[in-house]
């Protein structure tokens, strides 16, 4: 017998204005290419190819519209034995035509259900973070859109505020497109191996509940679409990055209330489960352990690795709370553990040096960052610039989150933390390395599906979840994952999904509920509710554009001394300053320029520059922002050592190096 799983466990689709697309990266940012001349990891893949990285010519279509990024899902077969350990190091892909346990795969039926619950969720609390969901803070827990009532489980509220197109199924042998729009029939893969329609599914879109919407960038018509590749792999495409608002009683649109929260607004991101059925030529059907897809902001700097990635966050949670690797943590970090330098340290060191391409780090700091990246697996730690971890912020306890430079990372922290710290597991690995206890060799090999899991998350933001880009602080809640993965056979990092019986759908009432709330018991249960479609992205900013726009640089928060120095929010994921490819002369970089620049972005206060002053402009112009990619992937003659901005539709003035201050 075999075990079947969809990978990546969490896939990431990204919005764009074009109908065209490329595929999500399947290599890791901050890691060398597979061979000589290969670009560094993190580059998306050309549509229709196995792994050909895109070039600058692939970022926009012939009309200049920004292409979307599709999340590609594959099915892997694992032997039944040994599935209680991680990593397994094995797994082989199953496609149409594969022979499995003596049977040939005739088709794959994929079912995906994405929804957007942002407007039916709670406000982000900038001081309490996830703690706002603790029962003792119930008095400050505030629902979004209170004009529709204060109970997120109220069906009437759900109907009006949740965007839910329902499930969609697609065959691996289909050549068409299945859209998450109002017109396309809801459907799912039934256990018998057929696609079953759900004509009564209660679809909900804002314009089905409200008249007179404010649609400056268009109406939300879809949350994306499904396609398949000829071998049966699934592609989930995000929507088009549209945000629209409601009109107030006086006929004016709801105003943007802040960077993260704006009642009366919707966007077209979403998330939800991905399931699959293998249909064999003999008519039998095999269920596959499913995955989850999240649609989110564009990846404007796909090869710039975050200092703390989503992988670092998720792995830290699994190591410390879910017994993933007892050799690393078994009640406490294990002194005998020897972290792998190539796998568990070098990507972090490389990430350090990559920050220069999206920030205005001064020259001396760039030199120091590059010295970190140059550390090799056999270098004695005492002889490197990181000796003693003298400049690394210690994340243990409530210790150093309030200490700024020279401690690193030089970025803002989570809600309630002034500065970013590496994860506890990252810090443990660094400590072991500093003690001379790192191994120069690679760690246990990952199976190809396991690699997809890690690579996908390694290319996403971790650390500063305020609230973040793709996923947020909920990834630190062990209850969002399937705990019993060893018994179930699904492998780690799977979202704890609510079983959805679409045959119970009725047109007269919403199919979805309020869903998961951190630190809250589910009704009639002792643990938080299992995840429904929309339960991940609902914690992100509404609309995402305003948060992306804002999160360039800020003073620290809390700020008891009224300090004016400015620090970066998400520099690897939200480029602040860039070097344009077109400014390079004879291999020499041109000046820094803001990534978000041009008309409407100017300010005399450095705390406000590099972003649109009117948040509506962010909703309208986000797709004009350029991408930062490796020189060797840029059309023309550029160095592989440089990561430069291309495909921007904006232009602008030069800027000076950090530090800088806000004007008070």
């Amino acid at each position, binding site marked *: 017998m075999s075990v079947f799983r969809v990978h990546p466990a969490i896939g990431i689709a990204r919005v764009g204005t074009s109908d065209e697309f490329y595929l999500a990266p399947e290599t890791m940012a901050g890691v060398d290419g597979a061979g000589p001349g290969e670009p560094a990891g993190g580059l998306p893949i050309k549509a229709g190819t196995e792994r050909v990285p895109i070039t600058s010519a692939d970022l926009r279509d012939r009309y200049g519209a920004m292409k979307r990024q599709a999340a590609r899902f594959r099915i892997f077969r694992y032997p039944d034995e040994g599935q209680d350990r991680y990593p397994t190091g094995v797994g082989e892909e199953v496609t149409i035509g594969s022979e499995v346990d003596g049977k040939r795969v005739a088709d794959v039926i994929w079912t995906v259900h994405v929804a957007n619950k942002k407007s039916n969720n709670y406000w982000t609390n900038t001081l309490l973070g996830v703690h706002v969901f603790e029962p003792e803070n119930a008095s400050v827990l505030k629902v979004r859109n209170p004009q529709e009532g204060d109970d997120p489980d109220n069906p009437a509220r759900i109907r009006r505020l949740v965007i839910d197109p329902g499930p969609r199924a697609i065959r691996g042998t289909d050549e068409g497109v299945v859209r998450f729009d109002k017109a396309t029939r809801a459907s799912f893969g039934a256990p018998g191996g057929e696609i079953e329609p759900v004509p009564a599914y209660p679809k909900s879109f804002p314009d089905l509940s409200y008249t007179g919407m404010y649609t400056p960038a268009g109406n939300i018509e879809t949350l994306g679409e499904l396609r398949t590749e000829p071998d049966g792999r699934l592609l989930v495409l995000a929507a088009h990055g549209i945000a629209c608002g409601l009109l107030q009683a006086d006929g004016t649109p709801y105003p943007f209330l802040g960077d993260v929260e704006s009642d009366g607004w919707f966007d077209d991101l979403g998330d939800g489960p991905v399931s699959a059925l293998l249909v064999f030529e003999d008519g039998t059907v095999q269920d596959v352990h499913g995955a989850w897809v999240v649609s989110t902001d564009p990846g404007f700097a796909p090869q710039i690795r975050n200092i703390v990635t989503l992988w670092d966050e998720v792995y830290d949670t699994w190591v410390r709370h879910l017994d993933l690797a007892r050799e690393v943590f078994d009640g406490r970090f294990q002194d005998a553990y020897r972290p792998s330098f190539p796998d568990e340290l070098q990507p972090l060191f490389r990430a350090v040096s990559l920050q220069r391409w999206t920030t205005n780090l*001064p*020259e*001396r*700091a*760039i*030199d*120091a960052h590059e*010295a970190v990246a140059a550390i090799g697996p056999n270098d004695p730690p*005492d*002889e*490197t*610039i*990181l*000796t*003693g*971890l*003298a*400049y690394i912020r*210690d994340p243990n306890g409530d*210790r*150093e989150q*309030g*200490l*700024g*430079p*020279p*401690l690193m990372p030089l970025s803002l922290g989570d809600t309630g933390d002034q500065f970013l710290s590496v994860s506890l597991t990252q810090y443990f690995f660094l400590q072991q390395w500093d003690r001379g206890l790192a191994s120069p060799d690679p760690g246990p090999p990952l199976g190809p599906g396991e690699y997809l899991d890690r690579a996908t998350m390694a290319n996403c933001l971790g650390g500063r979840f305020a609230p973040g880009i793709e996923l947020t602080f909920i990834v630190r809640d062990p209850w969002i994952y399937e705990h019993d993965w060893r018994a179930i056979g699904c492998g780690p990092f799977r979202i704890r999904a609510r079983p959805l019986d679409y045959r119970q759908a009725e047109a007269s009432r919403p199919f979805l509920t309020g869903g998961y709330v951190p630190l809250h018991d589910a009704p009639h249960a002792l643990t938080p509710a299992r995840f429904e479609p929309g339960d991940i992205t609902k914690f992100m900013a509404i609309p995402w554009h305003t948060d992306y726009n804002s999160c360039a640089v800020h003073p620290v928060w809390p700020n008891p001394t009224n300090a*004016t*120095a400015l620090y970066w929010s998400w520099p690897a994921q939200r480029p602040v300053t860039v070097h344009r490819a077109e400014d390079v002369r004879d291999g020499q970089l041109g000046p820094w320029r803001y990534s978000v620049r041009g008309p409407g972005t100017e300010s005399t206060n450095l705390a406000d520059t590099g972003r649109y002053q009117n948040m509506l402009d962010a909703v309208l112009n986000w797709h004009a922002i350029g991408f930062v990619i490796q020189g060797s992937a840029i059309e023309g003659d550029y160095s592989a050592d440089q990561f430069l901005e291309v495909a921007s539709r904006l232009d602008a003035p030069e800027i*000076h*190096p*950090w*530090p*800088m*201050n806000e004007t008070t």
Partner: protein
Amino acid sequence: MAALYSIRDRRSDAYQLVQDVVHEEMLHVQLASNVANAFGLAPRFAPPVYGGPTVPHIDFALDVPNPTELYTPYSTAIGPLDLERVNTMCLIEYPEWDTDRSPDLHEDSAEYGSIAEFYDAVRAGMFELRAHLRGGVNQVDEFRFYYNDFPGMTIVHDGDEGYREAIRLIDLITDQGEGQSQGDTGVAPQHQNTADGFEESWSHFKRFTVIRDMARLPATYTGAADPPPGSPGRRAQEILVADFAAFMQTLESLFGGDGGAGFGVRMAKIGGDIVTCWRRGAIPRFA
């Protein structure tokens, strides 16, 4: 730096106060070198030898009252942040009593009673030699964006105008260091770090007196001055000695007009080396 990195808790006020002194002293090296270059001198840096009760270059007995009677015991030997080290810092940054008289001018800098008096003498000499001052000579400007309210950290003009620029640099050094007059006046706003400082209105002298007056000094590492050959502590010392010598050469390169390649890396490495010395049970050694 040795005293700073001996402190175990980086959150402590003592750590933050001393850290700012370290940062500002690096600025002072730049400013003093800019002045020296403007007068045609070529800054040279040699690893100093520390130890014993003598603070190099200053004879406190010349000051009345003699501050060593107050700040005792003291020692210039490298060590953790303890009373001896704090007293020494207070002595070095001891402010000049404001007597409104011209400084005593001596050929031998060791004959000055305080560093403040020494700088008074420097000012007098700068005024007398201002016609020889040349702007734009090997000027270094590493810290300008840390001081948004300061008009300029380099000397760009010749003669009288350059002299005024140079005096501004000396003013910044002395204001941040020993403070004005009796040390009870805050550092002027234009001399305060606008980027990442801590209690920026406090002069170095005030910082060290505040630490001295703390009910308890922070917990520090301890170490051996001469760990056994081959021990981790000795190895850490050897790495620091080598790196510090390289850093001195980098400083000469930086202020000699050669760009100071590797300055950012070597500066950071010195700090890490010192931390490692303490953690390996050795007192940092610089030469």
